[in-house]
C-alpha cells in the first residue's frame, strides 16, 4: 500500500496543475497515471489558451463570452472564478518557461478565436497543448513530485453510506501495468481525478485511444453523479481515417468547404449565409453531415476542405503543420488536392458533478479537467477555454485538497441539489446487469480508511482474476458496438428514435460485457486487460450521454434535437444529473446558477 496526503489520478494539464498546487501548499502529493505524463492528451491541443491579459480586455468580458457560449447553462460562480484566475494562471505558466509565441516587444501574443469579444487566445505556435503539458511536467520534475506512471487506476475506495453526500473517499486502487500488481493508494486528504475526456465512446474522435472516461465512470460508481453529459462538442474538420484534428485556422485563413458536386456548401444550401465556413463548430458540423446524408458527400462519408487557392507561400507560412497532418495521417498533399474532412467527437462538456473547487459530493473526492463538470462550459465550450480551465480548476482543487481553502462553495452538489425528477420511461434497462454486480457497494460496515481501501483492493483483485481466468468474448467487439451506435445515433443530429436505439444497443453491449474475458494470460504489460476494464467505463459514459440527450427535449448549444428546434429556457434551464444509485441509475435535474457576486447573467439569444 502506498500512502500520500493527496493522490492525483491522471497527469494531463489538469492533474499536473493540481499536483503542483497541492505540493506548494505543503501536501505530500503523488500523481498516479496510466500514461507517462507527457503522453497525456493535453499535448494534442493546438489552438491556444484564453485569458484576458490585454489592458483593453477584462475578465468580466471573458466571463460574459463564456456564459454566452455556454448557451446559459454555465454556473456563474465557476465562470467568474475561471475568467478571473485564468489571467494569473497563464502568466504563471509563462514564468514557468512556457514558450509562448511573442510580439516584437517580447510580450506574449494573443489571437482572436471564435465566440470571443477580444483577441485573448494566448498561444505557442499551433502546439499550445504540447508546450503547456511539457512545461508543467517540467515543474513537477523540478519539485520532485512523485509520479507513478503506467499505473492504471481502476476503482475508488469510498465508504458505502447510502447517501453519496455522506461518503468519504480514502484513496484508490491502481494496477501497475508493467508488472500486473494491484495496490491500494491511501490518500489522507483527498483523491483528485484528472483523467480527461471520453472520446472513445465514439468511433470517430479527435481524442486519444486512452480517453475512455475512466474518471467519470469511477466517480459515478462511487456515488458522484455525472452532469450535463449530453453536451458533446463535435469538431467539423477532422480527417476521416483517423479523426486527427484539422485546426479551425484553415477556415480562419480562408479555407473553403466543398461537397461532391464541388458546390460551396455553406452558402449553396444556406447553412450559414453570413459567416459561411466560419460559422460556429456545431453549425458547420451539422451542415457537413446534412450534405452527406442527402447524398452529396464524397464517398458518402466526408466533404472537402480546400485551401489550395491560398497559395503555397501563405499556406507554408501559416498552416505548415496542417500540410504535415494531412500528409502523415491521410496521405493527402494539401497543396495539391483538397483535404477530406468530416465531423468528429472533440470535447465533452459534461463530467463528474463538482463545485467550483472541483470537489464532488463525496468527501475527499475531486475532479478537474475535461472529466469534471463545474458547469463552466455549459452546453458548448468556446475554443481555447479548456486549457485555462485545466489550470484554474486544477489549482483550485489542489489547494482545496491540501486544506488551504476557507471559503464555502456556492455550487451545490449531490442529491441535495435535486430540483426536478425525470419522469419518463427509459427504452432500455439502465445500470447494473445483475444485483450481484461487484461494483455496487455491498453494505458491509467498514471501520478504518485502511480497511475501506483494502476491501476495494480485494474486490478489484477478484474482478481482475475473473476477467483473466474465465473464457469469453473479446472486449473490442463490445467497445466497437458502443462506438458504432453512439456515432450513428447520438451524433451531431439527435432524433428520439435513434437515441432510443442507442440506449438499447448500449444495454445489449452491457449484457455482452458480462461475458468478456482477457485472452492474454500474461501479467506483464497486459493491455488486453487494461482495455477490457476501460470498455466498461466507456459503456457507462455512453449510457449517460444517450440518456441525457433523450431527456433533454430542446436545442441548446451542441445538443440538437430534431423535434425541438429551440432553446426552451422555461423547461430546460437546468443541469442534467445522472447518478449510479447503487446500480439503479437515476436521472434528475438541478438549477443553473446565473447569478454571481459581481455579475448577473440574463439568458439571451446566442447568435454570432
Amino acid at each position, binding site marked *: 500500500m502506498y500512502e500520500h496526503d493527496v493522490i492525483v489520478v491522471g497527469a494531463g494539464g489538469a492533474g499536473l496543475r493540481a499536483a503542483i498546487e497541492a505540493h506548494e501548499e505543503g501536501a505530500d502529493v503523488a500523481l498516479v497515471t496510466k500514461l507517462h505524463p507527457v503522453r497525456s492528451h493535453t499535448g494534442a491541443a493546438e489552438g491556444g489558451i484564453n485569458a484576458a491579459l490585454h489592458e483593453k480586455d477584462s475578465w468580466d468580458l471573458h466571463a460574459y463570452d463564456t456564459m454566452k457560449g455556454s448557451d446559459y447553462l454555465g454556473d456563474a460562480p465557476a465562470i467568474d472564478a475561471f475568467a478571473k484566475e485564468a489571467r494569473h494562471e497563464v502568466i504563471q505558466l509563462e514564468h514557468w518557461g512556457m514558450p509562448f509565441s511573442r510580439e516584437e516587444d517580447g510580450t506574449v501574443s494573443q489571437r482572436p478565436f471564435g465566440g470571443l469579444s477580444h483577441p485573448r487566445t494566448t498561444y505557442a505556435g499551433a502546439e499550445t497543448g504540447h508546450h503547456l503539458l511539457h512545461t508543467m511536467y517540467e515543474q513537477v520534475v523540478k519539485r520532485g513530485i512523485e509520479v507513478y506512471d503506467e499505473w492504471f487506476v481502476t476503482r475508488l475506495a469510498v465508504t458505502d453510506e447510502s447517501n453519496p453526500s455522506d461518503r468519504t473517499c480514502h484513496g484508490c486502487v491502481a494496477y501497475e501495468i*508493467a*508488472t*500486473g500488481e494491484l495496490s491500494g493508494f491511501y490518500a489522507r486528504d483527498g483523491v483528485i481525478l484528472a483523467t480527461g475526456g471520453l472520446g472513445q465512446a465514439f468511433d470517430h474522435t479527435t481524442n486519444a485511444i486512452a480517453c475512455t472516461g475512466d474518471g467519470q465512470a469511477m466517480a459515478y460508481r462511487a456515488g458522484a453523479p455525472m452532469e450535463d453529459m449530453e453536451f458533446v462538442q463535435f469538431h467539423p474538420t477532422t480527417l476521416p481515417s483517423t479523426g486527427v484534428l484539422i485546426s479551425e485556422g484553415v477556415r480562419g485563413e480562408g479555407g473553403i468547404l466543398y461537397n461532391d458536386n464541388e458546390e460551396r456548401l455553406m452558402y449553396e444550401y444556406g447553412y450559414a449565409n453570413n459567416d459561411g465556413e466560419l460559422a460556429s463548430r456545431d453549425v458547420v458540423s451539422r451542415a457537413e453531415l446534412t450534405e452527406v446524408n442527402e447524398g452529396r458527400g464524397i464517398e458518402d462519408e466526408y466533404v472537402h476542405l480546400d485551401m489550395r487557392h491560398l497559395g503555397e507561400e501563405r499556406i507554408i507560412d501559416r498552416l505548415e503543420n496542417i500540410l504535415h497532418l494531412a500528409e502523415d495521417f491521410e496521405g493527402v498533399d494539401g497543396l495539391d488536392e483538397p483535404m477530406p474532412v468530416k465531423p468528429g467527437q472533440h470535447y465533452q462538456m459534461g463530467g463528474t458533478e463538482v463545485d467550483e473547487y472541483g470537489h464532488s459530493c463525496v468527501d475527499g473526492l475531486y475532479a478537474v479537467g475535461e472529466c469534471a463538470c463545474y458547469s463552466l462550459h455549459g452546453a458548448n465550450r468556446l475554443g481555447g477555454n479548456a486549457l485555462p480551465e485545466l489550470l484554474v480548476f486544477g489549482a483550485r482543487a489542489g489547494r482545496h485538497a491540501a486544506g488551504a481553502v476557507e471559503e464555502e462553495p456556492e455550487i451545490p452538489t449531490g442529491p441535495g441539489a435535486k430540483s426536478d425528477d425525470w419522469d419518463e420511461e427509459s427504452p432500455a434497462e439502465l445500470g447494473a446487469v445483475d444485483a450481484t454486480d461487484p461494483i455496487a457497494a455491498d453494505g458491509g460496515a467498514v471501520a478504518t480508511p485502511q480497511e475501506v481501501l483494502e476491501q476495494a483492493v480485494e474486490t478489484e483483485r477478484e474482478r481482475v482474476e475473473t476477467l483473466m481466468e474465465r473464457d469469453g468474448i473479446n472486449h473490442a467487439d463490445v467497445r466497437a458496438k458502443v462506438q458504432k451506435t453512439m456515432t450513428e445515433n447520438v451524433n451531431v443530429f439527435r432524433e428520439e428514435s435513434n437515441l432510443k436505439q442507442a440506449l438499447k444497443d448500449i444495454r445489449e453491449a452491457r449484457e455482452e460485457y458480462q461475458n468478456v474475458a482477457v485472452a492474454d494470460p500474461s*501479467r*506483464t504489460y497486459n493491455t488486453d486487460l487494461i482495455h477490457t476494464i476501460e470498455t466498461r467505463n466507456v459503456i457507462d459514459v455512453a449510457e449517460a450521454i444517450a440518456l441525457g440527450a433523450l431527456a433533454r427535449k430542446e436545442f441548446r448549444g451542441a445538443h440538437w434535437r430534431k423535434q425541438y428546434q429551440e432553446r426552451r429556457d422555461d423547461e430546460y434551464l437546468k443541469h442534467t444529473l445522472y447518478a449510479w444509485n447503487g446500480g439503479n441509475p437515476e436521472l434528475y435535474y438541478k438549477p443553473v446558477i446565473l447569478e454571481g457576486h459581481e455579475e448577473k447573467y440574463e439568458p439571451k439569444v446566442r447568435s454570432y
Partner: protein
Amino acid sequence: MSQSYDRGIVESFGRWREFSAGMWAWIFHKLTGWILVGYLFTHIAVLSTAIEPGTIAAAGDGEFYTSTLQGLEELLIVRFLEVGLLAVAVFHIMNGIRLLFVDLGIGLTSQDKSFYASLVLTGAITVASIPTFLAGVL
C-alpha cells in the same frame, strides 16, 4: 519491472538495415583512424628496426636503412598497401574536414552530400596517384 529481454542478435542486425550516410561516415572514419594509428606505430617500428643497432645517436652510413626501405619498396604488395594507406589517409582527411565543418555548424543539412563528396574525392585522388605509387614495380 518484470524481466526484460535483451534482443542480442536481432538488435545488431536491425541496426544496419537502413542506410544512413552519417552513420557510415562515422564507421569509415573510425576504421580509417584506427588503421592510421596502427600504421603510425608500425611506421615508427619499421623506421627504427631499419636503423642499425647501436648506430642511434651516432648514425652510421645508413646502408641498412636504405636497403630495408628499398627492399620493402620493391615488393608489389607493399606498393598496393601504400595505395591503400593513401586511400585511408585521404578519406580520413576528407571526412575529417567534413567533420570539422560539422563541428563549426556549417553545412549540417547537407551532411550526407558532403559524405558522398569525401568518398568521391578519395576515390579520385587515390586513382590519380596509382601511377606514381606503382611506378617502378609494374
